């Protein structure tokens, strides 16, 4: 059962991946509209991506904890 | 350690060691790398700023010197202009004087010449009058066949002259 639980724990990575794609597409839109603000958009995007990624990272850590021991 | 009843392996010693590691690294990197680089860059920035200020000062000085020069140049020009004006005025006055003198001389020469011409004219006229009178005498004596008395002669000659003169004038 434990491997199954670990695989299930990785499900949040799906949402994180989709939403990171969304955020990136919006950032590309914003950069295309305002190329001069690209530096600021870039840093905000990275911050948002890091925060969104943390979901996937939590799920990954939990899966590891389940799978390894 | 055991006497204190402390089991060191139970304490999360890794946290302490890691934090100590980070603090040590921070101190080393800051004192040996970060601060010197920062100081060097700040010193360079300050030096560049000082040099820029100096350059600005020098530029201002040069501007001042240039303005001074320009003023001097202007003064020189004005002086030269004044000199030239004065010289021209002097020369003009001189020229005027010379011209006036020449004029006067010319006038005097002209007057002289005119007076002489008049005198000559008068002389010639007198001579011619006498000649004409003599000639008329000769002719009239020939015509009359006798000599004319002085009185007659005088009267006739006068009349003739008067007529000829007035006739000449009338024509």
């Amino acid at each position, binding site marked *: 059962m434990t491997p199954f639980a670990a695989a299930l724990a990785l499900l949040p990575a799906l949402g994180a991946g989709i939403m990171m794609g969304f955020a990136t597409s919006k950032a590309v839109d914003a950069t295309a509209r305002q190329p001069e603000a690209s530096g600021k958009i870039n*840093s905000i995007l990275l*911050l948002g991506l890091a925060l969104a990624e943390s979901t996937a990272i939590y799920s990954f850590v939990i899966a590891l904890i389940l799978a390894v021991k | 350690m055991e006497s204190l009843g402390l089991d060191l392996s139970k304490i999360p010693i890794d946290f302490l060691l890691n934090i100590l590691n980070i603090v040590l690294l921070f101190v080393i990197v800051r004192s*040996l790398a970060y601060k010197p680089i920062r100081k060097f860059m700040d010193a360079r920035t300050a030096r560049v700023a000082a040099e820029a200020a100096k350059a600005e000062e020098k530029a201002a000085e040069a501007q001042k010197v240039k303005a001074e020069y320009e003023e001097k140049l202007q003064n020189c020009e004005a002086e030269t202009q004044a000199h030239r004006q004065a010289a021209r005025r002097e020369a003009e006055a001189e020229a005027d004087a010379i011209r006036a003198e020449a004029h006067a001389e010319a006038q005097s020469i002209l007057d002289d010449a005119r007076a002489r011409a008049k005198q000559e004219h008068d002389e010639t006229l007198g001579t011619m009058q006498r000649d004409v009178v003599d000639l008329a005498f000769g002719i009239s004596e020939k015509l009359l066949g006798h000599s004319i008395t002085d009185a007659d002669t005088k009267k006739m000659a006068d009349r003739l002259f008067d007529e000829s003169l007035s006739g000449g004038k009338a024509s």
Partner: protein
Amino acid sequence: MDTLTGIKLAASAVVFVVFLVLWCKKRHDTLSEPDPKKAKKKRRLPFFGMVISAWFFVACVVNLVTGGPKGISLELEMFSPRVQLGPLSVARTTLTAYVLLGVIAVLCILFRLIAYPKFKDEPKGLQNLLEAAVEFVDKFVHDNAGDLSPVLPAYMFSVAVLLIGCAASELFGQRPPTSDVEFTLSLALCTFYLLNYYGVRKKGLFGRVKSLASPSPMIMPMRILSDVAAPVSLACRLFGNMLGGMIVMDLLKNSLGGYAVGLTSLAGLYFNLFHPLIQTYIFIILSLTFIREATE
């Protein structure tokens, strides 16, 4: 040494020699070529053949020595193995981090003694790199957290040096300290200390407590929880990313065996260079954001 390995070795050696001869011939032919680029283009095919056959030969030799690929299997431990040092039981990654500290200290001393006195007004080479890094970190900290103190950029600079050094330690076959949750949690605790320190210094102890209870006192437990979650999230993010990268690299190495010669370095460009740099950036920007939030 079975027959298959022998055939592989011999075949790759023969192919290598053939391509070498071809390359030499092409080189001789194109010696009179006036355009060196064109000559290089003509030599390209035998050159690649040479490289690939050489790679295959080396991979076969490595397989022979190490016993070939182990298949897709990985013995992974969440926590690094422990070493007994007198009365203390210390994680190996902690020792790696101390070795790293020593290396960085030696490099710093060398820099201070040798490179620093040679600094000139016009930066060049190493000086250019260091100046750009210091300038970048200074500006970055200033933009993200304001002018709190001159210590903060220095701390962030040293954290960046440490994280990049950790990534580099993986290249020397060590388990990177950042793939140990205790190390990343220590880093995050330092950030936590800094954000509380600056928060209290800027607003006073009472102001800090008041800002935690800012909309209403009811929400205070939630605010405290989210503040405590900040270092946990920082630590888990760094740990998860680094461990993930390490697992991918280990899997690649284990599953390819000897064939991993040269290929892992290509993958390492992403997993050992780009990824740690991005994570360093994110760790620092998140730390600065938390600190700014605490001081605002």
